[in-house]
């Protein structure tokens, strides 16, 4: 933390005393002032609520789709064999390139933002669910058979808990990706939220305000990440947490 403060002070001194002059680089004090105005006017809160809302909603939907499909592909060798390559190939296409297609199809709308967020979020959940289900140690499957558990019991009591750490990793990756895609969509498509705030500040040549939005976006990223990490800790026994580190 002290390093952050030291950096901010150094930055302030450099800019204030024009030791290093970079065009459009605001001093931390200017950023703070801009932040104060923006918070008081309620502008930030509104944009924050929009971005968080779309990210969370899209992530939720993406998680349901990703886990459902992932479970199917992970459990059924037939489904896996006759579709996995299609998913691999489609996944390789960077989701960013679908932004223009989504804009053409859905226009500048909330729908476009939501579709992009869901599309991007599905992949990590899907891949990690499949991986989690398929990498269950064969011994564990034998245990299920030996104890004469039914197929449903095996899935509920053995497969799902064993795949959980991997699924949680997927959910966490998906959440950061959903946030990125929401902000991208807001920057180029849906005129709302933090992404739009950034672009508006950029176009109005208000660098201080722009930095405010960059910082808010970063803090939001940190907050979302740590929320999920806490949730994971509550869900998992401590030995499984190692896999979630980093």
């Amino acid at each position, binding site marked *: 933390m002290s390093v952050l403060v030291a950096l901010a002070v150094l930055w302030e001194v450099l800019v204030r005393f024009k030791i290093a002059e970079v065009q459009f680089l605001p001093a931390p004090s200017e950023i703070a002032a801009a932040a104060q105005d923006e918070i008081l006017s309620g502008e930030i809160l509104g944009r924050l609520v929009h971005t968080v809302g779309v990210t969370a909603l899209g992530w939720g939907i993406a998680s349901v789709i990703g886990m459902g499909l992932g479970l199917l592909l992970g459990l059924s060798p037939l489904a896996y*064999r006759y579709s996995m390559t*299609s998913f691999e190939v489609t996944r390789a296409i960077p989701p*960013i390139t679908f932004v223009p297609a989504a804009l053409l199809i859905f226009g500048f709308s909330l729908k476009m933002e939501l579709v992009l967020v869901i599309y991007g979020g599905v992949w990590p959940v899907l891949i990690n669910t499949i991986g989690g289900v398929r990498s269950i140690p064969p011994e564990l499957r034998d245990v299920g058979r030996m104890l004469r558990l039914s197929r449903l019991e095996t899935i509920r009591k053995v497969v799902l808990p064993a795949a959980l750490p991997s699924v949680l990793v997927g959910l966490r990756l998906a959440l950061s990706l959903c*946030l990125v895609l929401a902000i991208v969509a807001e920057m*180029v498509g849906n005129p709302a939220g933090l992404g739009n705030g950034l672009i508006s500040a950029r176009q109005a040549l208000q660098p201080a305000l722009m930095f405010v939005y960059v910082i808010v976006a970063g803090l939001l990223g940190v907050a979302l990440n740590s929320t999920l990490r806490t949730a994971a800790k509550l869900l998992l026994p401590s030995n499984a947490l190692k896999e979630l580190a980093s």
Partner: protein
Amino acid sequence: MSTRSLPGLLPLIALLGLWQLLGSPDSPFFPAPSSWWPALFTRGQGAKIVPAVLDTIRTFGLGLFIATILGVTLGILIGVSRQVGRAVGPTFEFARALPPAAIVPVATLLLGFDEPMKVVVVVLAALWPILLNTSSGVQELPPTLLDTARSLRLSRTRTVFRVLLPSVMPAIVLGIRVATPIALVITLLVEYLTAVNGVGALVGEAQRTFQPARVYALIVIAGLISLIVNSLVRSVEDGVSRRRVGDRL
């Protein structure tokens, strides 16, 4: 791709076939796949494709390269010294969670619309997986290894280059593999947002001039670049891990 994974292509082929049958070449949303390829060359735009691909690959490659050098150096520093790690921890936590898209407007404002700006943004996004994997790789090294180096009275540089780096290599390569798709996505994103150059800029242009077939064709090109780049990195990773297994045998 092995023959065993070929049946898995069926759904994609079926989807494209269905699209071809149902879509018309003039659809503003879903132009038939057969119209994609020709759309690359209409209105004399064919000459733009190859330079754009090269621009994208250059930014991506340069960005990933610098991110690797920077990430490995910083990662080793942080991994070796607990104090450094603790001091920069919160800063890194923030920088890592910052959505890379948010950096773009700032970068264009401070650095302008040019190639170095593109590379800087890519480096800032691709750095983290490499840095984190390297530092945790260093931290997880068996203490015996460094004790061995000390008892053999190796110099500091020798310890780093002969003992430390080779042992952390698999972690570094894993970091690079994770960073590769990120670097490519961010390259395309910067290009799309700033229209400086590259495939991303072409997609944006095609979208703004309402050429849906061209947008889809460029998506396919981006996908191909991504497939090739990722499989290259994966084969490097396989090579590294195979050599290590070989060492142990």
